């Protein structure tokens, strides 16, 4: 089973990288970009019987730092 994990900074956590990307977009002439936040996308191939709890634990124990980040898990059914 393919699983996608999206890790993003919690609201309120300053994102210097997002700010720099925002600034660069404006420099390229793209108008109307209100905000940019940079996150992380992790794709995993896991055993089909992997439980939601196990996936949750992977995120909490390693993939995300719960002090500053949130995560969202998306499961893709086998093709």
């Amino acid at each position, binding site marked *: 089973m393919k699983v996608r994990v999206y890790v993003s900074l919690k609201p*309120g*956590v*300053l994102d*210097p*990288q997002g700010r*720099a990307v925002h600034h660069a977009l404006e420099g390229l002439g793209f108008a109307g970009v209100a905000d940019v936040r940079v996150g992380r996308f992790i794709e995993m191939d896991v055993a089909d019987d992997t439980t939601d709890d196990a996936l949750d634990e992977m995120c909490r*124990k*390693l*993939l995300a*730092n719960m*002090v*500053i980040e949130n995560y969202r898990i998306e499961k893709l059914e086998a093709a």
Partner: protein
Amino acid sequence: MAFRGAVITFPGSNCDRDMAVALEKVSGEKALRVWHGDADLPDRLDFIAIPGGFSYGDYLRCGAIASRSPVMRAVIEAAGRGVPVLGVCNGFQVLTESGLLPGALMRNAQLTFTCRTVPLTVENNQSLFTAGYDAGQTIAIPVAHHDGNFFADDETLDRIEGEGRVAFRYADEVNGSQRSVAGVLNETGTVLGMMPHPERAIEPELGGSDGRALFESAVRGLVTA
């Protein structure tokens, strides 16, 4: 009994030798070197140091992989028994990632790697690590990091400040850290994490010796204890 200090080395650590030299110069005893894959620490340790560097290439997040390595389980257990632990730079990142210290270290606000000697204010001189300084004293210690921007939520910042757990603050703007936090203690004052490198400031020949008192007070405190 002779002082027994250990320095942990992860793949990508690069300040482990400097840390060992600092401990040896101050204690007169050889520092024990511990590899990250070791599940056990040497017996009867008085002091554990987690050095700077780029453990595991800073993959995922700085310190994230190292903090989950076998030896860190032993370090967390030892810290729980009250064995003093010092984490410098990447070592500080490992300690926050492991949960031994609050907060997180994020990319520097100015986005650049910053490598220079900076002034620090000693906020708390009542800990094992800082007893050799005066409260409010300004000391010069080198920093060399890309991800030293200390972040914690306001509630956590209020709590650690209220409990006297901010050991050092930057006296100048360095990296955007919340409330200029440069070094943090755990609840019992026996675990210290800091971004600046005291082990790089132990002799005038290195450009300064303001870091020496940190090791001296820790070693003295432990040997007379």
